[in-house]
């Protein structure tokens, strides 16, 4: 028998007892549907987290702060120490805590730590507004870490750290209010940023928009390159040089070649020196772990459903073999080999598996895409760029193949039984 004929026969046999096939397919459908959805949630969330990590910076970056020595309520006052007590309130510190500032001495100490390639302090600037041409002025903030991070762009290019020109990456929510027709339209335009210096006098600084970014959960505000930050900082200081420079946060690049263990060791080294170093993944890791856990549990349920469906397949095919005893006997009498009979029944199992999984995955994609669209407009509109259900072709294909494999394995027992049948016994079977 030709392979083509075997497949065609298997398919038409599958549809011979429609009700039974439908019920078995339904059981597989449930498992495949769930598995496709849970995988999509996992993929959607991790893609979002990856994009956020990308927005915050390269994987070889530590965000470094002074280890905050518990100045929380109940601990009593801490003695003043002229050397270490420079305090700044920082956006980067957890809410409700005060982070001690990093001084130039700290930066040298960090830079000298083995494994650290470079350290850059983050200078925070507080602009008042942004304005395009003579349009409306909008309140505006700049993300202090933007110079060292990668934005999730919708148009234009990333910031150029070495450029002498003042560059800006505009959050896409500003595009329409500022009077641009589209994100692409905004790229290349020159905007003015208003900033008030410490003496209360307002200045404006011009910057060129090089890109438009999606607003991200962890890096709110616009991006500015070093040149723009320097210009804004100069304007903000009002020409007065403060004697002691202090920064809330520093960004340190470490050696890219370091292994995960070495990175952990490096963090420990910095901790003993009194600094808290976190990679971007560390900051997001906790969230991702929880989501992965939930996805894992849901996947386990889906797999349990599939195992139950596998018994359904075994049952269906055993009944089918029983019912078709004579047909099998006849085919064997007419010279069909046991191997071919085995293949035929295995194929029937695979066809059932394919039907269930393809329909399950298809419906999951259809419903999921609709749901995802509704959620991103409603409940999840605060998280732009989050596609809660992301259906990756490879993972959908993997689910279908996995279910087909399970179906094939379930088909082995019935197929073996059919293949072993003695033609004479089968033809005598009443």
């Amino acid at each position: 028998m030709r392979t083509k004929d075997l497949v065609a026969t298997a398919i038409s046999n599958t549809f011979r007892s429609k009700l039974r096939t439908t019920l078995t397919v339904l059981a597989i459908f449930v498992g495949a549907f769930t598995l496709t959805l849970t995988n999509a949630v996992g993929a959607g969330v991790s893609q979002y987290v990856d994009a956020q990590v990308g927005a915050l910076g390269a994987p070889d970056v530590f965000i470094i702060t002074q280890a905050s020595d518990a100045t929380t309520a109940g601990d009593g006052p801490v003695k003043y120490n002229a050397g270490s007590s420079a305090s700044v309130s920082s956006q980067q510190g957890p809410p409700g805590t005060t982070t001690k500032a990093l001084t130039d001495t700290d930066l040298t100490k960090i830079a000298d730590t083995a494994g650290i390639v470079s350290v850059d302090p983050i200078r925070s600037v507080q602009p008042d507004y942004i304005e395009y041409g003579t349009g409306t002025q909008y309140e505006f903030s700049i993300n202090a870490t933007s110079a060292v991070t990668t934005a999730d762009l919708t148009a234009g290019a990333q910031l150029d750290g070495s450029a002498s020109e003042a560059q800006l990456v505009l959050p896409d929510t500003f595009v329409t209010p500022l009077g641009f027709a589209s994100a692409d339209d905004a790229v290349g335009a020159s905007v003015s940023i208003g900033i008030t210096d410490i003496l209360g006098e307002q200045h404006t600084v011009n910057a060129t928009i090089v890109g438009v970014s999606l607003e991200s959960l962890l890096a709110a505000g616009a991006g500015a390159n070093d040149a723009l930050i320097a210009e804004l900082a100069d304007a903000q200081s009002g020409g007065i040089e403060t004697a002691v420079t202090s920064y809330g946060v520093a960004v340190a690049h470490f050696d890219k070649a370091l292994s995960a263990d070495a990175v952990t060791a490096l963090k420990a080294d910095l901790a003993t020196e009194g600094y808290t170093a976190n990679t971007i993944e560390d900051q997001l890791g906790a969230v991702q772990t929880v989501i992965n856990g939930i996805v894992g549990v849901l996947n386990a349920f889906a797999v349990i459903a599939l195992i139950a469906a596998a018994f359904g397949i075994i049952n269906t095919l055993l009944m089918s073999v029983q019912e078709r005893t004579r047909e099998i006997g006849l085919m064997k009498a007419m010279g069909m080999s046991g191997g071919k009979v085995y293949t035929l029944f295995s194929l029937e199992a695979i066809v059932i598996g394919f039907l269930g999984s393809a329909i399950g995955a298809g419906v999951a994609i259809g419903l999921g895409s609709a749901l995802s669209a509704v959620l991103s407009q409603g409940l999840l509109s605060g998280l732009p760029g989050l596609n809660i259900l992301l259906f990756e072709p490879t993972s959908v294909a993997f689910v279908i193949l996995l279910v087909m494999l399970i179906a094939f394995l379930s088909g082995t027992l019935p197929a073996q039984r059919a293949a072993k049948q003695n033609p004479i016994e089968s033809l005598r079977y009443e």
Partner: protein
Amino acid sequence: MDSQWVIDAQGLEKSYGSGASRFDALKGVSVQIAPGETLAIVGKSGSGKSTLMHLLALLDEPDEGTLQVAGRDAKSLSKCAVNGLRNKEFGFVFQQFFLTPNVSVLDNVILPLKIAGMGGKERRKRGMEVLEQLELADKAGNKATTLSGGQKQRVVIGRALVNAPRVIFADEPTGNLDTATGAVVEDILFELNRSQGITLVIVTHDEDLAARCDRQIYIRDGLVVSQTTSTHTGLTHTGAHALVTPEALSTAGGAE
């Protein structure tokens, strides 16, 4: 047709079950079938006719005795070779129709060709030829279950001859049919023998059908009790079993 293509069975024994429930269905049967002849295996119900036919058709293996097909010992043949023989050289008409329900008449007829691996177009063409030959072409698309008994048996014969076999084994081909329909089916079989030289091995308890064959062997309780050869005028007793008592004949031929 190849004159060496002889089925030669010597001392076939076959028993079913074991211990107390052991039943010897065949107790040493020797048969030779020459190419192009028609042979009737006659006997009462339970005498072992079907069992013998199954052994001759390589559907089952004897416990004792040897079977040679076209000069080769059946025991020496591989499983694959046996499957090939049954698929290409033999045609089968079983005691029941064994048509696949809910499958078209044409698809039932071309099953052996499908198993042989013939292409779809080619096998449908051959199937239609056979159905035309059997005057069933107009039923080709019908489901097998919608046919009358006689039509079903003709489909079964179509399935048996679609692969242009050398030998057709027919187990009670007219057993399920009324006399008139039975006669039509008989005519078809003997016409195949005459025009295409297909060897016929017919299991029957119908004395008239047996008489139309070239040769008859009578079986009783797993043993050959007599062999006869027919001429156009009637029966001629031959060989070791030439002396057949009228009693033996009547019991053999009088099966229900």
